[in-house]
């Protein structure tokens, strides 16, 4: 679809905004609707759009498969790592309250990191699923 000039231009224009919107959904998640799952899917959609318009090979140059799998595990590790960190600070597993000096900001930090982990994993998984399917049988 590379020769469709309209598609290319519109995609190029919109991809940065899609990503920005994903980041908004991600980090505004503790004040309004949003969170890691949604943000991850939106972020992944940006890559998928790119791959659809500019071809899988170009997309793979941006996000090679092993980088994607790397992010899948990093996100999950971040999530679980926050939980374990809470253990070391003397709380229960996933008890964010102990992460900072006072309980409220601790909760804040904790949920931010956990959702970030979720977002990374979801985005990477979405990209990976698309790449794998698109790559098959070529």
């Amino acid at each position, binding site marked *: 679809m590379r020769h469709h000039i309209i598609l290319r231009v519109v995609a190029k224009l919109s991809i940065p905004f899609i990503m920005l919107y994903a980041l908004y959904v991600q980090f505004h998640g503790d004040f*309004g*609707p949003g969170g890691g*799952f949604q943000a991850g899917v939106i972020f992944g959609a940006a890559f998928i759009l790119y791959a659809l318009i500019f071809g899988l090979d170009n997309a793979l140059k941006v996000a090679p498969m092993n980088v994607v799998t790397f992010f899948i595990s990093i996100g999950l590790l971040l999530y679980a790592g926050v939980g374990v960190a809470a253990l070391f600070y003397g709380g229960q597993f996933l008890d964010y309250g102990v992460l900072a000096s006072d309980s409220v900001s601790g909760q804040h930090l904790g949920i931010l990191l956990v959702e970030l982990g979720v977002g990374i994993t*979801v985005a990477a998984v979405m990209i990976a*699923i698309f790449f*794998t*399917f698109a790559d*098959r*049988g070529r």
Partner: protein
Amino acid sequence: MDFFVGHYNYWIFVFLMMLGFYVVVARGNLVKKIIGLNIFQASVFLLYISIGKVFGGTAPIIIEGAGGSPVTYSNPLPHVLILTAIVVGVATTALGLSLVIRINEAYGTIEEDEISEMDLEP
């Protein structure tokens, strides 16, 4: 009448569930089965969401300026649960479809009856 109209969300749920279930059972095409499975799951998502709805309630977000006055809001918990269930559903679908692709590569078909015929041969 009230039994039917008053519980319309349940009727939709039951209809979708049976529809999905029927597709899973009756269709021999493996991709169609996955689609049926998706409908089947989606019906359950609807069930959860609809029973969490409180009439007249808003989204469960702290509204600035309301000043702590009581606000009616829908039960957020089913949404959270279903978010998880949707993720599970996506994973299932992805895995199911990838299996279908592998099956297609191994057998050259995705029709159930042809596959079972080929399995009988050796």
